[in-house]
């Protein structure tokens, strides 16, 4: 439902963005300072920060990106070990679901906690917890630290007329790797493609039909308008 709502408001918002000052495209998880108060619900069983050790519950340093039941030496419930074996890794969304209702996610968890119903409380405690896991500045592969908006647009994508001026701006990201003069050394040329081919290829990356991870990532956050804009720009590039 939330993703549906954001998709509805995304188009007019984007149109407005073209003419105003820089806008923020992602949201911080929550207020980490406020999260220190929420932490009081947790601190009877869990430790966090320098020198934290496991007690009744496992210590929560490095919880983001850790597999469920994954801290060596801690005696987990069968449920957490099972979910870990099933591939559950603690991400923002998974932790959010677990904190909202622990037993809904892991039915036989031993964490005796009713859950945090208020979204703000969950956001704040998650922001607090995130400070004690790897920082992407130092470990670039560390899990994300913010939420971005899921973008889902109507299917008439091929009919969109691309704004090549916008495309030129967006293209600066492409030209970090793809050379503007069409050179083809290790990374393919993307200049002078027919617009439709370009749009189809980019959407194929976006939905991960094409396999290349860098391109999946780059295409994954482009809107249909942005893809059309890039296609318009690169086709007509001199």
């Amino acid at each position, binding site marked *: 439902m939330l993703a549906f709502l954001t998709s509805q408001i995304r188009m007019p918002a984007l149109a407005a*963005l*073209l*003419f*105003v*000052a*820089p*806008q*923020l*495209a*992602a*949201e*911080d998880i929550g207020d980490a300072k406020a999260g220190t108060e929420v932490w009081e619900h947790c601190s009877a069983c869990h430790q966090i920060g320098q020198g934290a050790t496991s007690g009744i519950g496992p210590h929560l340093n490095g919880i983001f990106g850790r597999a469920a039941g994954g801290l060596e030496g801690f005696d987990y419930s069968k449920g957490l070990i099972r979910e870990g074996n099933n591939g559950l890794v603690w991400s923002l969304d998974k932790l959010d679901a677990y904190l909202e209702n622990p037993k809904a996610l892991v039915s036989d968890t031993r964490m005796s906690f009713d859950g945090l119903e208020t979204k703000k409380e969950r956001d704040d405690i998650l922001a607090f917890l995130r400070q004690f896991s*790897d*920082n*992407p*500045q*130092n*470990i*670039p*592969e*560390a*899990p*994300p*630290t*913010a*939420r*971005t908006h899921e973008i889902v647009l109507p299917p008439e994508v091929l009919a969109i007329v691309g704004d090549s*001026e*916008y495309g030129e*701006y*967006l293209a*600066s*990201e492409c*030209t*970090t*790797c*793809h*050379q*503007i*003069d069409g*050179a083809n*050394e*290790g*990374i393919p040329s993307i200049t002078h493609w027919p617009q439709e081919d370009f749009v189809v290829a980019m959407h194929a990356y976006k939905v991960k039909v094409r396999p290349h*991870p*860098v391109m*999946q*990532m*780059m295409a*994954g*956050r482009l809107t249909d308008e942005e893809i059309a804009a890039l296609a318009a720009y690169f086709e007509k590039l001199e």
Partner: protein
Amino acid sequence: MPLNRRTFMVKGVAAATVLSAPHVRADNHAGKPKVVVIGGGAGGATAARYIAKDSKGEIDVILVEPSRMYYTCFFSNLYIGGFRELSSIGHSYGGLTKGGVNVVHDWAVGVDRAAKTVSLAGGAVLNYDRLVLSPGIDFVDGAVPGWDVTSQNKMPHAYKAGSQSELLKAQVESMPQGGTFAMVAPPNPFRCPPGPYERISMVAHVLKETNPTAKIIIADPKPKFSKMALFQEGWADNYSGMVDWIGEEFGGGNVEVNADEMTLSIDGEVTKVDVCNVIPAMKAGRICELAGITEGNWAPVHAATMQSRVDENIHVLGDASAQGDMPKSGFSANSQAKVCAMAVRGALTGSKVFPAKFSNTCWSLIDTDNGVKVGATYEATDEKIAKVDGFISSTGEDAALRKATFEESVGWYAGITADMFGS
């Protein structure tokens, strides 16, 4: 004509440029907004080029960079490993000049934020409407006991590319058979998170060919590092028994060096070494401190525009900035520079400003045709540049994929250097 500060400064610039750099155009477009960019690396060169290119002559852009030939830090490890010539990572500024950037080869030695001027070592004073600082890194004094910059000719850092890279490569190649190469790795945050470990891979590659009984030790103050599983797998598979990583847990952060004796002490145990690559803790390039825009070691910025949190007329790019989640890398600086260029043009000429988007990929070479990568996309939040998505190579990938990843990195190098320096 009344001689106020502004007209004086403009004349001062014109006179100084005539004296110090004859090829620089006289700066007499008094009506145009002026941007001064300090530092001609991945952040500064890209910002200067994009502002000049996209403003189509509406903004005067001056780039201040002491070196006439810039050696990229990225791929300098490949030079040490014998995969690139040094000349192939050197770039001159002719393309930027052709692109309308006024390139001044001098040191920036002061910033007067009230007057909005930059003073250069050669005596010139430059006015700016917006100042872009992209000076890269300097080292924290006293970070490694026993080492200071005067030790760098015996114990090179090789973390600014060029003569330091040449020295380290020569030292590795002249190690005695069975000798010891040591690295003192830096604490977080530092330029190029996988860089020290790619360097270890490149040194191991050279030693495997020429000096297979040699040893490599790394004293590291950190408990873990980027692509750790990939590097450790690579070292075990390709350089078995050669590399000994001593992390925080085993005293890797408790080191002292003696450049005259060529010794390294790790947690009290002194070892005689043949090469000692000391990579000290880092801070923003000194001009940021001189401009008074640092907090701690770095210069904090607003994510959406890369504007300093201390002075809205100054933007800080790349390694020197404290921006949030992006690693300090050439790719990051290049990405931030484009956001900055757009914000600067928007402020000075009223051009469209689009939402900030940032990305980074770090490729590393483990051995011949064995490349890995880690990358992410980032967006601006109120607090910082935040990571929103990413990927990393997997352990156990097949040789064809690793070869393709390496070839991709070679293509990227050609792409980003063309994007930075023009052609």
